[in-house]
């Protein structure tokens, strides 16, 4: 019996192996390395299509200087979306619900964009601390606010992913428990609840994809300010 609904997020360990390591290391067998031969299958075709279209869309608003990040951002998207989606399967562990993992990706990548900006074009990068057309009395306050918002970005990036996935998993578990409890007492209500559960699962599939995209998109926006 579950002690608490939050126990599903505790990082489990089996035979001395932390399952978070397995959940991070193994999903990549789903991405077959495509060969240089002119032979393909449906999986490779749809993955290649997705990666190329996604990279194209993501790099469109960026300066040419930011295009070096294409491989990194595409890899990040594949990494996050795969872990998010596989985590929705029953009895799996989702590493992206762990705050430490998300912060481990958010902080270094955000810091990289800031350092690039400060090193290559410090005037433009610092210019983002004050929006154009600010009334003079507001200038000191606004610079403080913008500086805070700059430094809170990695925190928001990591917490956003954690909170969204955690909330989704919790809701699914709560409603699934409700279905089991209601089944012997009120079958009709239980069936209705199961319908809600099904719709919620669809929503969570969407959230898993959207949150991976939002993470990468925000990083590309931070990069856009700094290249």
């Amino acid at each position: 019996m579950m002690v608490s609904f939050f126990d599903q997020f505790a990082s489990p360990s089996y035979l001395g192996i932390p399952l978070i390591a397995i959940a991070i290391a193994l999903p990549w067998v789903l991405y077959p390395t495509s060969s240089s031969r002119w032979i393909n299958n449906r999986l490779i075709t749809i993955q290649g299509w997705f990666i190329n279209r996604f990279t194209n869309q993501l790099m469109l608003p960026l300066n040419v200087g930011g295009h070096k990040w294409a491989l990194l951002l595409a890899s990040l998207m594949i990494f996050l979306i795969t872990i998010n989606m596989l985590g929705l399967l029953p009895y799996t562990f989702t590493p992206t619900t762990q705050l430490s993992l998300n912060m481990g990706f958010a902080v270094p990548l955000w810091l990289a964009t800031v350092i690039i900006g400060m090193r290559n074009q410090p005037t433009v990068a610092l210019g983002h601390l004050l929006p154009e057309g600010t009334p003079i009395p507001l200038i000191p306050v606004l610079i403080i606010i913008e500086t805070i918002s700059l430094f809170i970005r990695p925190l928001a990036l990591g917490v956003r992913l954690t909170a969204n996935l955690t909330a989704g998993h919790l809701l699914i578990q709560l409603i699934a428990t409700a279905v089991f409890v209601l089944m012997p007492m009120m079958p009709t209500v239980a069936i209705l609840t199961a319908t809600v559960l099904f719709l919620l699962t669809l929503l969570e599939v969407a959230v898993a994809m959207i949150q991976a995209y939002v993470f990468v998109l925000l990083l590309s926006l931070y990069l856009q300010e700094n290249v």
Partner: protein
Amino acid sequence: MPQLNPGPWFAILVFSWLVFLTIIPTKILSHISPNEPTPVSAEKHKTESWDWPW
């Protein structure tokens, strides 16, 4: 709430970045450029010997 536990954050950081930087980019690259790029100056494009893959 165990998901907020910083836990073995350094081990998680190192291992996840190891996977992220070693395994995934090779797979992505093979999709983006399935053939090794040849320089424009190359006289003759090298072709690999081909046989039926099975």
